[in-house]
């Protein structure tokens, strides 16, 4: 027994049908579950050129391999599809309780295609699958819709259902909308909410109660116990947060060094991700004034956004499924300026940064209100903040007029105008409607492209690549560009990957010159970071578990115990590499050209900033990205001319001992191998394996599965 259910649920909204489909064990061996399973399925089943908002696009919800096994920090669910924002691979993930709910229905993932005629929601309780009328919920915000579904299903299901739904932003097909659960927690990126809205699918409601399998639950439990025991002791003295801003100022002038990542857990337990805001403002990590400002422009803003202010109004912490950290919290905001709600989630760092320093907005209270508005609407705060920043800069430079902005005075730090604009974006009214699809579309319509900060169509996360050039590599090379959760130098220094992976370079002290170089050493660091992140996503792991490092959150040991395997870190890193390659292949199949993706000049330090910790920094991003691809073994010149060109190895056949059993073709996770080569076996005519598509990812599953040693894997010439 392993941790996989071995089944996926396939739903066709057009035909109003659903079927349970078995997944061969070889697929799990090749790509795990979670994002890996989604990459495997979507690469095969979304046709090239599919309209992201049409019936051919497939919306996938998946739980990771370790979800439900007792492993800590493995409660993330991933949603994936073809992104309407970038035209390539799109995914987003979120915590809460939805990941185990997928598995408790008896599936590792749910794949939804087609378009419903009228608004529906998908209901599954592990026994039956139904498409139900959702007209009563259509138009409600995500939090209200979830409450209404819970109310209406109360007493109907044995188990309290878990709901993932869209808000008005997704219903109105905003390309920067996401999918929510747990009262406004959102899988926000890549425009996944618009895809759900285009399918007229308001919600996915899961109420299964099946047990979740695991090979060796006792060993998994022992690993979790060891981690939990340490985390319980991790507390910081109250009030320490006031020094964070000063710490950031110091960090901004120091080189990156290897760290003990486990100590990040102290910060997340004490403050949540918003601990980073003060630090980011002063260190150069957080973008200021639409990525063009310096800490001088927001002097002492770190005091306004100090995490201790937010902790004072925190009423309770909350945890995702299987998380002992609990970085989330509920805030009492009743009676605060701008507040239309009584409470909100503790805003994430990204939200505070995107609506604080990025817009030169000094009002913390306005951010509580914006946080709740956007969470309920199901709109991505990163993309929305970047879009508002573009609008302000265009207005300040005369590209937008007051008539165009519906009378809004869009100046830096004008809190009232920012709030009003966001409300208009959510409602898709007037100027808000015109910019509700993100900064790329807005700048194509109104001009001001030089102020439009997006990478390949997606607005970047709130970390500055001039502070951490590795981040710039991932912003560009990541198949879902602009994401900040794939790799950073500082994170690499905390993970000690070199202790599980033979080819991952040791984390050593790097000065700025090292970090800016396009050396193979730095490329191997970015590759190792990306591969490990994909592995974590396949396992359903949390980014903050990953940051703790391999000595604290023992992913390799967890996977071996949960699946009954005995693989080493190198083997698992190969799985991560495979997932990343599949996602990149998806992009190539869809005609998305990775070579055309660029960092905006401003983000690359062209021209460099005149002062502050990032003074004078210009990235060598294109050279670093080229080195990153080389480290992956992807052919730089052929990478855009077909799926198969990114493989590093290919199968070679010795047909003499072949018995035509077909085990190899069945093992292929991407159906690149088929039993179609006609020939003779002795006196009999027969069929033999051969590559039937150019989609081979070089994973070697066919060679491993063949009992007759017909296949060997050879390096590409």
């Amino acid at each position, binding site marked *: 027994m392993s941790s996989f259910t071995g089944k996926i649920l396939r739903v066709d909204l057009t035909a109003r049908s659903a079927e349970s489909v078995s997944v061969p064990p070889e697929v799990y061996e090749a790509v795990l579950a979670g994002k890996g399973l989604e990459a495997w399925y979507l690469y095969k089943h979304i046709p090239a050129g599919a309209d992201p908002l049409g019936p051919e696009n497939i919306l996938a919800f998946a739980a990771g391999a370790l979800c439900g096994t007792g492993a800590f920090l493995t409660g993330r669910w991933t949603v994936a599809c073809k992104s309407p924002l970038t035209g390539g691979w799109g995914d987003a993930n979120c915590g809460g309780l939805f990941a185990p709910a997928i598995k408790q229905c008896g599936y590792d993932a749910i794949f939804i295609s087609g378009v419903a005629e009228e608004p529906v929601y998908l209901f599954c309780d592990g026994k039956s699958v139904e498409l139900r009328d959702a007209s009563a919920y259509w138009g409600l915000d995500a939090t209200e819709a979830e409450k209404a579904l819970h109310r209406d299903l109360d007493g109907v299901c044995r188990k309290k259902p878990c709901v993932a739904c869209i808000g008005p932003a997704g219903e109105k097909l905003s390309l920067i909308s996401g999918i929510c659960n747990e009262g406004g927690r959102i899988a926000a990126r890549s425009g996944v909410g618009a895809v759900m809205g285009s399918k007229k699918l308001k919600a996915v409601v899961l109420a299964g109660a099946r047990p979740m399998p695991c090979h060796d639950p006792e060993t998994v439990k022992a690993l979790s116990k060891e981690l939990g025991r340490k985390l319980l002791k991790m507390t910081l003295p109250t009030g320490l947060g006031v020094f964070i801003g000063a710490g950031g100022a110091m960090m901004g002038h120091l080189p990156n060094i290897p*760290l003990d990542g486990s100590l990040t857990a102290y910060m997340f337990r004490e403050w949540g991700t918003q601990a980073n805001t003060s630090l980011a403002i002063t260190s150069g990590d957080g973008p200021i004034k639409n990525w063009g400002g310096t800490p001088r422009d927001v002097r002492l803003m770190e005091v306004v956004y100090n995490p201790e202010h937010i902790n004072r109004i925190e009423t309770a912490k909350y945890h995702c499924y299987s998380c002992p950290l609990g970085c989330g919290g509920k805030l009492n905001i009743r009676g605060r300026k701008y507040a239309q709600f009584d409470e909100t989630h503790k805003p994430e760092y990204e939200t505070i940064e995107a609506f604080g320093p990025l817009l030169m907005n000094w009002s913390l209270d306005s951010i509580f209100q914006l946080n709740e508005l956007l969470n309920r609407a199901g709109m991505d705060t990163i993309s929305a903040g970047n879009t508002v920043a573009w609008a302000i800069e265009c207005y300040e430079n005369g590209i937008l007029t007051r008539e165009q902005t519906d009378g809004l005075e869009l100046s830096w730090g004008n809190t009232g105008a920012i709030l009003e604009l966001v409300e208009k974006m959510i409602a898709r009214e007037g100027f808000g409607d015109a910019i509700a699809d993100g900064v790329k579309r807005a700048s194509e319509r109104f001009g001001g492209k030089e102020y439009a900060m997006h990478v390949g169509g997606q607005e970047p996360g709130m970390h500055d690549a001039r502070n951490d050039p590795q981040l710039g590599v991932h912003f560009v090379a990541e198949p879902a560009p602009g994401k900040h959760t794939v790799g950073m130098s500082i994170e690499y220094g905390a993970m000690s990957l070199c202790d599980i992976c033979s080819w991952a370079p040791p984390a050593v002290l790097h000065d700025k010159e090292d970090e800016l170089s396009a050396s193979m050493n730095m490329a191997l660091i970015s590759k190792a970071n990306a591969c490990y992140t994909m592995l974590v996503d396949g396992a359903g792991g949390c980014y903050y578990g990953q940051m703790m490092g391999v000595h604290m959150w023992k992913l390799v040991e967890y996977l071996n115990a949960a699946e009954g395997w005995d693989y080493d870190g190198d083997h698992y890193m190969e799985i991560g590499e495979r997932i990343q390659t599949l996602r990149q292949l998806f992009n190539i199949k869809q005609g998305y050209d990775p070579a055309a993706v660029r960092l905006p000049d401003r983000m690359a330090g062209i021209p460099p900033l005149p002062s502050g910790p990032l003074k004078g920094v210009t990235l060598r991003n294109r050279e670093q990205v080229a080195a990153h691809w080389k480290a992956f073994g992807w052919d730089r010149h052929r990478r855009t001319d077909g799926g198969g060109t990114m493989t590093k190895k290919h199968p070679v056949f010795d047909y003499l001992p072949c018995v035509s059993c077909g085990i190899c073709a069945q093992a292929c996770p991407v159906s690149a191998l088929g039993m179609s080569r006609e020939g003779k076996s002795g006196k009999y005519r027969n069929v033999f394996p051969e590559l039937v598509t150019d989609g081979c990812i070089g994973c070697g599953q066919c060679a491993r599965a063949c009992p007759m040693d017909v296949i060997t894997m050879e390096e590409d010439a």
Partner: protein
Amino acid sequence: MRVKILPPHGCDRNALDARSWAELPEGIRVRDALRLIRCGPLKAKLLLMSVNGERCTPERELHDGDVVGFFFPVSGG
């Protein structure tokens, strides 16, 4: 015994190999490791330190395979 030490800024890494491991005699404590990387007493007083992810004092005894770390914030969101 082998111990992994992740030294803070301004400390000497010469006693460590490329992967930050050091070969040390049995029975040494965190304060000895600090001395090994030339971390002065003032800096040592300001640092929060941990062994295998558990906060500790400089008097904590080290064992084979231990990872010694020092508090330093990491970005995220």
